[in-house]
């Protein structure tokens, strides 16, 4: 956040919804892995990190965000990592609902 604008309302306003927060988190993870010399390693690292540390619901939300809004707000590497996760999720057998 580089602007002077006060942050959006703390009570769950539009700019502070979980999708926006998840996009920010994904971009932060991408910023770390972009130092990987090989692009493939960076994408795999981002995807692996998200699978390892994010809840299933968070993953569902951000993949829904990608599917519904394309690359809105996402940097290139995390966007690609999330697209791969979507493909993997589609290919994986459905786990029982909790």
């Amino acid at each position, binding site marked *: *956040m*580089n*602007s*002077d*604008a*006060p*942050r959006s309302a*703390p*009570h*769950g306003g539009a700019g*502070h*919804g*979980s999708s926006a*927060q998840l996009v920010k*988190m994904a971009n*932060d*993870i991408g*910023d*770390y892995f*972009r*130092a*990987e*010399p090989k692009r493939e390693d960076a994408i795999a690292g981002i995807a692996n*990190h998200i699978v*390892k*540390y*994010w*809840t*299933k*619901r*968070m993953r569902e939300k951000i993949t829904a965000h990608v599917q519904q809004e394309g690359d809105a707000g996402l940097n290139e590497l995390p966007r690609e990592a999330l697209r791969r996760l979507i493909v993997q999720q589609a290919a994986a057998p459905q786990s029982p609902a*909790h």
Partner: protein
Amino acid sequence: MLSIVEKDLGTPKRENTELVTLSIDGREVTVPAGTSVMRAAALSDVKIPKLCATELLDAFGSCRLCLVQIEGMKGLPASCTTPVAPGMKVTTQTKQLADIRRGVMELYISDHPLDCLTCPANGHCELQDMAGVVGLREVRYGYEGANHLTAEKDTSNPYFTFDASKCIVCSRCVRACDEQQGTLALTIQNRGFDSTVSASQNVPFMDSECVSCGACVQACPTATLSENTLIEKGQAEHSVTTTCAYCGVGCSFRAEMKGEEVMRMVPNMDGHANHGHSCVKGRFAIGYATHADRIVKPMIRATISDPWREVSWEEAIGHAASELKRIQAKYGRDSIGGITSSRCTNEETYIVQKLVRAGFGNNNVDTCARVCHSPTGYGLKNTIGESAGTQNFDSVMKADVILIIGANPTDAHPVFASQMKRRLRQGAKLIVADPRSIDLVRTPPRIAAEQHLKLRPGTNVALLNSLAHVIVTEGLVNEDFVRARCEAPAFERWRAFAAQENNSPEAMQAITGVPAADVRAAARLYATGGNGAIYYGLGVTEHSQGSTAVMGIANLAMATGNLGREGVGVSPLRGQNNVQGSCDMGSFPHEFTGYRHVADDAVRQTFENDWGVTLRSDPGLRIPNMFEAALDGEFKALYIEGEDIAQSDPDTQHVTAALRSMECIIVQDLFLNESAKFAHVFLPGSSFLEKDGTFTNAERRVSRVRKVMQPKAGYADWEITQLLSNAIGFPMHYSHPSEIMDEIARLTPTFSGVSFARIDELGSIQWPCNAEHPEGTPTMHVGEFVRGKGKFLVTEYVPSAEKVTARFPLILTTGRILSQYNVGAQTRRTDNSRWHPEDLLEIHPHDADERGIAEGDWVGIASRAGDTVLRARVTDRVQPGVVYTTFHFPDSGANVITTDNSDWATNCPEYKVTAVQATRVSQPSEWQKRFREFSDTQESLLKHADVMYVGK
């Protein structure tokens, strides 16, 4: 006065493999070379009279009571200052010695009040004891001569009294302040008869440099320096060894008791972390445990605008369980979760995470380490293979170069800081990387940092990369170590990265603000100065690149071969007493005990078999994710054990909005803390004095916590969690915390050798403790890293998203102060608040002048997240452009300003970097007014309930 159960052997223990045999009063004694005759005698049960000698301090040789006769030696040497020698023949009792000792005592007693029966030291006064030992029957000089009997008492300190009339000028207090604490606040002023103990320049203790560690009180052989509790209530009648519940040093104490009342806390001379030393918090600030504010009856209410209703334990637990089940039935299994406490024991933490994973059926469990040292876990695990510091505290005594990054040990880890200062006074070199001038940068005499790298907040990684650049490009890499111990491809990749010109100190200077020459000098010193040891704190972790910085630190240590032996290493200084333990115990949503991922089928299977349930393989919500999920309407109930997220977590308004959106918040705590004001169920918890268990300190040292009094509310915290678990339908049947530790050991390879019995036997155990390391592991990564080969990771500097602008031109960074602890729930309820009654805003004189701000003015601090008002302290401890405050008082609103930016890997909040503006104002902020109104309302709802307090 030492603990009532400790035997003082007169001079410190000497470590030496060479043994010396001598004869003392005809008894043959064998001791390590370097041992004093006095100690050798004491070890063979020969008691030599003494007054100025104590095992806690180096020998001084002033009182002349401990004289002995040694065959072949001229005169009568002092046994405290005379080292043993092979074949030495010592005689401790002769008529000549007796006459001299009696004469010495006559002189002492001729100027000493003879009020033994009413003296606070009666029964444990060493002067009184020695009078008896030497057979003093008369004082030939009389009592009418010049004396000090009318000297005034100094009662300025809330915890101890200085009564100069009883002083024998043995210098034990002065030496304790020098040698143990390292503050040098006390001196002997004047000479001869006029000699007196003086605090600073002969001012009251409270106004002096004294930090109230109590070392002088412990060292005093008379009642000159006495704890006020001892003066008011008399001596204890029994003692229980336990572990301090404040910072991550984990000092061992003897709780001296009279029945169920604590008379004194005396640091344990055998304590493996503290060796008989303490700070003002651990020794004195325990009054909170019996403070009138403590709530000791369970309470419930339907909404947070309702008055609390005091209920039975059965009703409270039943209501909580019913609400949790109702919410899960309505919103789904993942709609509830729990937070474990770094202030509670390992056993209590373990069963909270077990309750969540097995009882709630999800992995929505997290701990306050999320907001402090979670990057340590991530960064160290991925580089050297284990989520913990590599050394014990004693290792610092073998360090040649000490590099402190983002830590302020004299305030946050004072007992370890004292040990570090001892090493620095012995000549170890110091490098400090910190935006502020912490005390260690310059502490006369003899402590002055070779380099103070005064970097801009948020630029740790840039600085670490520039240090790495110097090491790589100036041929300072320990090639043999790296070749033998580290993964070659990863190292080569890192070497190429570090060597890039954009990582050079000259290129990074514009970012860090640190002169390139200083960085180069620091890198050379760390790499070539002998044993290099890195100590770091929250000034590293609490950044958007917290994990990256931890990796950068590990990279530096590996590159220079500073790992795997004493005197070196990477040591995170943990904040709360059991942060290490709460992490070890599986509190993170993605890990079981011992840092094993929930997706690991084999690991999960062992827990499923033991617990008899099917467990989830997907990670649960972290604390900040819980808030987001709550605001999204998906997370509705939270069980919080011993944490205060409404005060300690960043972006307060965001946190409280999340708490308001939930349907059932269960808070288990000692007090109606800030989070409890949003709660629907209050379960009164127990202090560390009221339960058995273990804490694990920053050295991975597992130490016993022992119950010294019954829980004020009837149950220890582990029992409350067990009641809740049973009520929701996941039975637990522990009858003692030792059974919980047995289960932890059964399921955790690094703890397989740990049990209460084994800890009792060894005093404490540093994990890993297993078949390979049956007595624990003081130094990790000896020979090879836990992960096999060490892995260098590339650490590109990514600037924080939090930027200064014309509207927010200053950077706010936050920290702690010696007298207060964390959110202050404990220390604010003690006399420690006399040292720090409010949080202040430190601002540089230049920035203050520009804004017309003077010392003590109200200053409004506004960030993109919120605003608050604090009083100004104008000081050049902070650099221009940087302001600083603490967060010990809830109405300060320090975390109203901090943002929700967080570490990329762990979501540890970026407390250390917030862009702000500071302006002179005349009234509290709008948030503070709302906070006060809400708080008053909540307190009235508590009073309205006529709830049972400890004080009633």
